[in-house]
């Protein structure tokens, strides 16, 4: 990466010559001539490239890319350039007992993989539209992200490859770029490659931005990027467990022996299922685990596509809430966090005692359609 790092002072000089404000952070690494810095944040990414490639490698690549509810540990100091790949393809997934549909996915699961980076990191992202292929994600693959082995160990969604050719795109809310360039739609067989900088800390949605975006997202194309603050959260040293939960609605109707997307229900905001981490039983079959007295942190994203979430942990109070996951947006002592579509919060609570803590969308029409899970707390352990 060092080969690409340019001295920001040189950049500042160029900006000065251009007659623009020269406020830069000397520690921010620039890589391309097009880049510039405002308030320590990098803008001006080079154009996205769209091309065709022969690629049969793992569909998800990246050392810090995991399956929900896991979050990879950032085991490096300072900033880093991440090479991340999330191919787009179709996959049959189960979302409730006996209810499966042919989802459109990033990386094969619903929601897609979790990407963890640090504020200021650079992401070099590649995505091939492999909707014309049968892509298997349930077997180990050399060079694949940790996500692969986690999916292999958790077969709740009963993944099966499906071919469903369709144009798709990728829209990272964590990126600050020209959407018409970076979030461009690619045809089946094409690959798009672009870069973005994690300029802001927080938990961000990514999704397919191809019209009908309502259908593409409802079909399963969304996930979370967690951008940890450069200086951390003030409680970092006290946190015992850290999880990611993505809430979403599904709009499915039964047709013959299978389930298909129901656009009427989607427009009417009348979901057939509302789920945490892609399955009505995701956090019941595999509950989150902790111990009494632990400080638990959850990065909670409401992916929608259209509904709100009122996230609540039965028996606990959120000690801290950072709206959108930005450490500057601190709330204290909240019982419930209201999130609009594509909004997130990083919440923390103390597990009061041994027991079972239900996680719910306190909009009970949603909870009763699946938006519920559990955290199991063991006895207190002296630290």
């Amino acid at each position, binding site marked *: 990466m060092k080969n690409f790092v340019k001295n920001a002072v040189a950049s500042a000089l160029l900006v000065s010559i251009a007659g623009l404000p020269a406020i830069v952070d000397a520690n921010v690494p620039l890589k391309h001539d097009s880049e510039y810095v405002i308030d320590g944040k990098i803008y001006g990414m080079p154009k996205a490239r769209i091309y*065709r490639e*022969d690629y049969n490698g793992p569909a998800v690549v990246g050392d810090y890319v995991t399956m929900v509810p896991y979050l990879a540990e950032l085991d490096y100091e300072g900033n880093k350039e991440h090479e991340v790949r999330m191919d787009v393809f179709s996959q049959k997934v189960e979302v409730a007992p006996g209810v499966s*549909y*042919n989802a459109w996915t990033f990386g094969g699961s619903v929601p897609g993989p979790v990407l963890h980076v640090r504020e200021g990191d650079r992401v070099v992202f590649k995505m091939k539209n492999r*909707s*014309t292929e049968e892509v298997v994600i349930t077997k180990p693959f050399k060079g694949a992200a940790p996500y692969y082995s986690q999916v292999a160990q958790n077969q709740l969604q009963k993944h099966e490859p*499906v*071919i*469903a*050719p*369709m*144009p798709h795109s990728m*829209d990272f809310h964590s990126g600050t770029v020209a*959407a*018409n360039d970076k*979030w*461009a*739609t*690619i*045809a*089946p*067989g*094409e690959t798009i490659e672009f870069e973005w900088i994690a300029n802001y800390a927080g938990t961000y949605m990514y*999704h397919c*931005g*191809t*019209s*009908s*975006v*309502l*259908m593409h997202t409802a079909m399963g194309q969304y996930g979370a990027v967690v951008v940890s603050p450069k200086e951390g959260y003030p409680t970092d040293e006290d946190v015992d467990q850290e999880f990611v939960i993505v809430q979403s609605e599904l709009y499915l109707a039964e*047709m013959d022996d*299978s389930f*298909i*997307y*129901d*656009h*009427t229900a989607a*427009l009417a905001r009348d979901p057939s299922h509302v789920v945490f981490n892609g399955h009505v039983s995701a956090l019941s079959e595999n509950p989150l685990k902790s111990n009494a007295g632990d400080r638990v942190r959850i990065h909670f994203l409401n992916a929608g596509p259209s509904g709100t979430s009122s996230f609540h942990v039965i028996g606990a109070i959120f000690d801290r809430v950072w709206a959108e996951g930005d450490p500057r947006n601190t709330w204290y002592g909240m019982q419930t966090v209201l999130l609009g579509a594509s909004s997130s919060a990083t919440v923390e609570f103390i597990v009061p005692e041994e027991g079972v803590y239900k996680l719910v969308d306190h909009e009970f029409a949603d909870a009763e359609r699946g938006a519920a899970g559990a955290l199991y707390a063991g006895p207190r352990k002296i630290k």
Partner: protein
Amino acid sequence: MTKWLSAMSLLVIAGANADPVIIPAGEYKPAVLLDESVDSVVMPAFKLDPTPVIYADYLVFTQANKNWRRDNIAAVFHDGNYLSDWPSADTIPAKRADSAITQVSWFAARAYCSAQGGRLPTLDEWEYASNYYLQQQGLSDKAYAQLLFGRHSNPTAYAKQSIGHDAEQLMHMHDRVNEWVEDFQLLLTNGDDTDLLAGSCGDSARFLTDYGDASYATFFRYQTRSNYRAQSTTSTLGFRCAYDME
């Protein structure tokens, strides 16, 4: 040689596509407004294949036009997967003789139609024919929308289904494959006709005359079709040909 002969004998059984049907002149109101000042289009009569072109007929075309064989096609005319489901350049997949041909690029579809003395239908012609077909079939908006969304939920299964070759009226406009049209890249694209805002998410309402299920289903077809490249080939993308009236 044996394979070639067996393929030809299959053709005798399958026969050629049925004769084109006449789509009578008329006026139609597009569900998707490509030009906000044009809410209805007057269409002259034209002829259209009653069904999508099938494998058996496409094999005859490649035998007669060597430049469109899989092992001979110019690289610029496809994305690398042209007829990739054929066991060999002379052999169509088993049990697919009377299914809609797929894995064909826009260039190949055009060449095929030209060789039949026809052409690809324009987008307006295809959509006008679709409206005509829906009326002919008595399909309600809801049934039509469910058919389209159902097919997109499992498109490969629909694409593999067979097609009768004695159709005397329009068939399989919505229950087999997506179909190429001549001017498929009209909106949401990167060419001169790009509407930048249309490419971003959620920005579809201003193109629609109403927000019913049928219009969304139709819009979805426009959008999907428009995001293919002329070189694109997929297992669910085929075509049928149009012809001018004599």
